[in-house]
């Protein structure tokens, strides 16, 4: 099958949806002429024109709120916030407006829009361009939260996000943009709330998101050399969360490690760990482990940043520790 990068896969999803449905419009900073800072929207301005690919001023609250208003009145906007870090300046539009309108209005009106953001450290851009606080959106009822880890998932989840009638926070990972994978040319969707087993195993379950899926696959190869058979579950959407697949895997292996690049405290891993503790604690042979970013801002200096990013160096020891419990 044809290979695309993660960025190209999202680009293709946007292009196909825009061709199919003229209500789909794009708004964001530097998404037109420049093609987006990660080139996700490259070429779309030429193809669809400035009315549908809108290079906005640096006014996140303004254009995110405008997208809410446009969605309420019949459009299907896809908004790019350049980095998740910048959602803080438009959080009212996301949390108080976009997420809640359908509920507050008693089911009157809907807000079919996609908010594209990205997470991930590793580019030397310090504490305001590298954060991974996507768990925050999981905390807000009314939002769907997609977290693709592969080009295939990115395309299918994006098309689903655009066709879905609910507001979707689409969380990309900036270290994955250049990763390649098989992607079908035709349009397809991946339904929300369906996890995928990215690697089957008997001994231990890793629930991993985003780049942590790739990192866990590498760690699993390391562990395999010592006879440890790791299973990797990728939830693909955090809301809705495919609890059943996670629980089924944990019940099979009896060991759970959750790997997510967000901070450890109150993060995605904390939520999934708590869910398993509530639903399946008697199946566990070992304590739950979390491999996450430390509870510090993202540091700038390269050695510090490399140490900060949760990776194979953190996953392998965590796997071995869990295997010490019989």
């Amino acid at each position, binding site marked *: 099958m044809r290979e695309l990068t993660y960025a190209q896969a999202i680009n293709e999803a946007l292009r196909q949806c825009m061709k199919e449905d003229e209500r789909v419009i794009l708004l964001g900073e530097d998404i037109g002429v420049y093609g987006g800072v990660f080139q996700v929207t490259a070429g779309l301005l030429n193809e669809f024109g400035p009315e549908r690919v809108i290079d906005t001023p640096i006014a996140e609250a303004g254009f995110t*709120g405008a997208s809410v208003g446009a969605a309420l009145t019949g459009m299907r906007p896809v908004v790019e916030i350049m980095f998740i870090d910048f959602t803080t300046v438009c959080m009212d539009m996301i949390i108080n407006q976009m997420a809640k309108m359908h509920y507050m209005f008693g089911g009157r009106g809907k807000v079919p829009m996609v908010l594209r953001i990205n997470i991930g450290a590793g580019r030397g851009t310090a504490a305001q361009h590298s954060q991974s606080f996507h768990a925050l959106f999981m905390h807000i009822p009314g939002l769907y939260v997609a977290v693709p880890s592969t080009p295939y998932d990115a395309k299918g989840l994006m098309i689903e996000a655009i066709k879905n009638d609910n507001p979707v926070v689409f969380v990309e990972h900036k270290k994955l943009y250049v990763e390649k994978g098989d992607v079908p040319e035709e349009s397809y969707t991946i339904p929300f709330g369906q996890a995928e087993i990215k690697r089957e195993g008997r001994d231990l379950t890793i629930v991993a998101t985003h780049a942590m899926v790739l990192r866990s696959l590498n760690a699993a190869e390391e562990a395999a050399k010592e006879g440890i058979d790791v299973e990797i579950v990728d939830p693909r959407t955090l809301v809705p969360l495919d609890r059943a697949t996670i629980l089924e895997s944990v019940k099979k292996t009896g060991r759970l490690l959750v790997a997510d690049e967000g901070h450890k405290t109150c993060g995605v891993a904390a939520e999934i760990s708590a869910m398993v503790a509530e639903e399946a604690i008697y199946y566990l042979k070992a304590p739950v482990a979390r491999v996450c970013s430390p509870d510090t801002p993202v540091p700038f200096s390269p050695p510090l940043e490399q140490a900060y990013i949760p990776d194979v160096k953190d996953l392998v020891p965590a796997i071995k520790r869990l295997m010490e419990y019989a």
Partner: protein
Amino acid sequence: MKIDKETLLKLFTTMLKIRLFEERIVDLYARGLVPGLVHLYIGEEAIASGVCAGLRDDDYITSTHRGHGHVMAKGADLKLMMAELFGKKTGYCKGKGGSMHIADMELGILGANGIAGGGLPIAVGSGLSAKLRGTDQVTACFFGDDASNNGTFHESLNLASLYKLPVIFVCENNLYGISVGQEKQRLLQDIALRAANYDMPGVVVDGNDVLEVYNATIKAVKRGRAGEGPSLIECKTYRWRGHHEGDPNQGRRYRTTEEIESWKKKDPIERMAANLITDKVVTKKKLDALKKQAMEEIEEAVTYANESEFPALEEMYEDVYVQGDERR
């Protein structure tokens, strides 16, 4: 501009109905039938009435925390409104929104809004949507004086002007942001001056004169429909009650009795009633009949709200997400 008799009566009746509705809420709130927070529009009725009379049914409005007047002027059903204020399942939002979140997409009411300045970007969005869909619908965006100090005001005026969107920014300047007087909020007291920064017309009107508000709206609507871009109308007015029901002594911690009384002398409804009679547009008897009719309508709404059920507890979990979509 000459305004026909029918429009004059519509303007008057809308103001009157809002006043009577709000006065009824004072009583219902005091008796505990309306829970939570209510922000009443008494004294400011001319603005919503004048603006919405200049709109078509398919035009949009965005509203504020003080939104009863806006949605009534845009045609909201009084029964559904009252039931919502009571928290009943028959209300506009099935009892899940309350006073600050009344919305009706069929009437172009894109929601009252509990966040000061929250409605401005949304109005830009409905303006953008109308433009992209090729309709000539306009959006009237109501907001308060202190919302003009929020970043969303500046971002929204800039975007609307940049993209020449059919949005009418209606500032209801009632001189106070909750308890903080406008001289403590900003140095320039005329918010309309800020329009110049965004290359759009900005006018100050007497917000207690419904005809002035209406005439300014007609101009702004014409400009919007012609694709010439947004306008800003600043309406100087005053709220008679406190910020919300329960604000001690109707806001006398930060306002003097003299000030409040001086504004009551500028009552937009009495002023118009006097003019209508002097100009022989209507008789006193006709005005009394209008009042009686409005009161009956409000009483019907109260009865409806009273007799309606509260939502069942499991309804809490409904409407968080849209179920299904165009595909299924």
